């Protein structure tokens, strides 16, 4: 059984003229039951005597009290009805009661067991009807003895669903209380409710008997009143079963799973929002500490930052100057080499040295020799004539040569 929240429920089971009081307590670690008392002559003994017995166990009774009435008090019948919209089906229920049950609609208190047999997809309903005056007498006496109010009245047949028969492929619970009524279970889920007992059918099933075991039910397992009371307490948590207790004709009973789910949801919401808020608060507190520490070393940091910025600025300027002047070199060696290509018997009229090239204009006995000399100078390359070679008034060959500088000395072309 899956149970998300703990609960304590007390079942008051009517057995003849006795009242059996059993509580079931479920926690996260497990479920336990405790039989508090069996009060004989509950309805017949003097009220004071019963009160004296009741007072001793009153504190052990939970707020959630269910009264279990014998199967013989109830009539039942399969009906095409479910618990959904139960409170709105009053008229339909009254018509069914008038038509099929030995109670007048005004006298009857009606309940419904809705179940989905194992492997089936459609739900079935079984209507239970009991006499309100018969139940009312016990209800009134109970409320006189105990301060607790009865929350639900359940027929014992409904309570057999809480016996925990899930381990049997087929089980049959026979209730012998004047009549013999059998309720069939498949893997713990009802498949037929309060049917006449069929011995042949019982052979294929695990048989449980509420009441005496005789020759016809030899080998069956006895269901004690205490077990039946425990079943009443666990009924809301049986899978595949929904129900309306006898007399539950007004507002629909709040499904016990709804507050459970609401509580879980609220806890989850609180957890999510709480963790978020807590995380935000911790972050803000941490930020505050950080700001305090920053403020504490503000002056020291300012000094170092200033030192760093000044050093970085100086280093940057030094680096820039070094990069700019890295290629700078004297122009004199190349100028001397350029002049050196003109032989002593020649004349240089113009020498121009730019960052990329050298241009020499002049005259010589052999201009080709000057061109070869320029080409062979390490500082220059790709030497060529750029003008016409002609005869000068000195009977020399004029020349105009140009060559690329092998290296530059940092100028802009």
């Amino acid at each position, binding site marked *: 059984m899956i149970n998300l929240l703990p609960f304590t429920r007390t079942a008051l089971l009517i057995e003849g003229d006795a009242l059996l009081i059993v509580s079931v307590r479920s926690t996260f670690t497990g479920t336990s039951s405790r039989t508090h008392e069996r009060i004989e002559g509950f309805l017949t003994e003097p009220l004071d005597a019963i009160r004296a017995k009741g007072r001793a166990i009153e504190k052990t009774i939970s707020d959630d009290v269910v009264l279990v009435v014998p199967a013989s008090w109830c009539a039942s019948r399969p009906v095409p009805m479910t618990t959904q919209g139960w409170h709105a089906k009053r008229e339909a229920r009254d018509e069914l009661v008038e038509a099929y049950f030995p109670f007048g609609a005004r006298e009857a208190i009606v309940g419904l067991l809705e179940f989905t047999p194992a492997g089936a997809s459609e739900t079935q309903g079984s209507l239970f009807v009991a006499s309100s005056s018969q139940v009312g007498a016990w209800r009134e006496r109970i409320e006189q003895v105990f301060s607790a109010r009865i929350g639900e009245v359940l027929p014992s047949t409904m309570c057999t669903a809480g016996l925990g028969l899930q381990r049997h492929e087929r089980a049959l619970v026979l209730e012998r209380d004047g009549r013999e009524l059998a309720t069939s279970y498949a893997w713990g889920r009802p498949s037929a409710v309060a049917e006449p007992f069929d011995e042949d059918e019982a052979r294929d099933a695990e048989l449980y008997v509420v009441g005496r075991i005789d020759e016809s039910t030899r080998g069956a397992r006895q269901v004690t009143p205490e077990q039946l009371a425990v079943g009443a307490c666990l009924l809301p948590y049986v899978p595949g079963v929904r129900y309306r207790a006898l007399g539950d004709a007004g507002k629909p009973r709040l499904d016990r799973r709804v507050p459970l*789910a609401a509580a879980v949801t609220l806890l*989850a919401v609180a957890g999510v929002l709480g963790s978020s808020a807590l995380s935000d608060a911790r972050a803000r507190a941490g*930020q505050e500490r*950080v700001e305090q520490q920053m403020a504490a070393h503000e002056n020291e940091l300012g000094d170092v930052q200033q030192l760093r910025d000044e050093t970085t600025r*100086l280093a940057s300027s030094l680096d820039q100057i070094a990069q*700019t002047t890295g290629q700078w070199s004297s*122009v004199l060696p190349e100028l001397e080499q350029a002049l050196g290509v003109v032989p002593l018997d020649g*004349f240089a009229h113009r020498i121009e*040295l730019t960052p990329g090239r050298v241009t020499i204009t002049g005259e010589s006995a052999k201009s080709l020799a000057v061109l070869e000399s320029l080409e062979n100078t390490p500082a220059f390359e790709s030497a060529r004539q750029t003008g016409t070679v002609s005869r000068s008034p000195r009977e020399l060959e004029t020349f105009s040569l140009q060559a690329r500088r092998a290296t530059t000395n*940092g100028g802009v072309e």
Partner: protein
Amino acid sequence: MSPRRKLLLGVLAALIAIVLLDKLVLTGQANAANGDGTSPQEIYRARAALLDRQRALIDQRDEWQLANSRALEEWEALAEKLIVAQSVEIAEGELRERLVTIAMEMGLPRPDARALTPIVPDEASPIRVIRYNLLLSTENWESAFALIDRIETDPSTIANITEVMLDGPGLPQFETELTISLTVQAIALVESQRGRDAS
């Protein structure tokens, strides 16, 4: 589907909706209240990281002190050779004065000088390469070479000659009038008064 399963799925859907609401709406609104849409956690992490960097910088005080001393020493040696001026134009004028002085000191005629477009290695830096073209006449080529040498080795300036033009008949065999054209570049430190006040 069983009612219990429906219920659990419903609870799960509600939780997902709440988480999304918290993350997308509530947290977003809270973060928007911070001004720039960042969460307190993000701000805290950023500030903590900044604190770590600040502490690391403080721990490096000695290293920065040493580096600063070295840079200052190097800078002071270099600064003597820089043309320091409040504008490029003033620096160019200063360079012109220096070049003219050199020529005059060598007994050469006063040269004509024409400023060329300066080179800016980095706009953000105060370092500029200012350039000048000198034009003068001399009677012999030795004077031209001496002038070039003197400019390039001037201890008060970081200077360099990028272009030379020597124009004259029969150079160098005959002593005659030569026209000398030199393109000189020098390093200047241009720090405007306004910029210094601001810094």
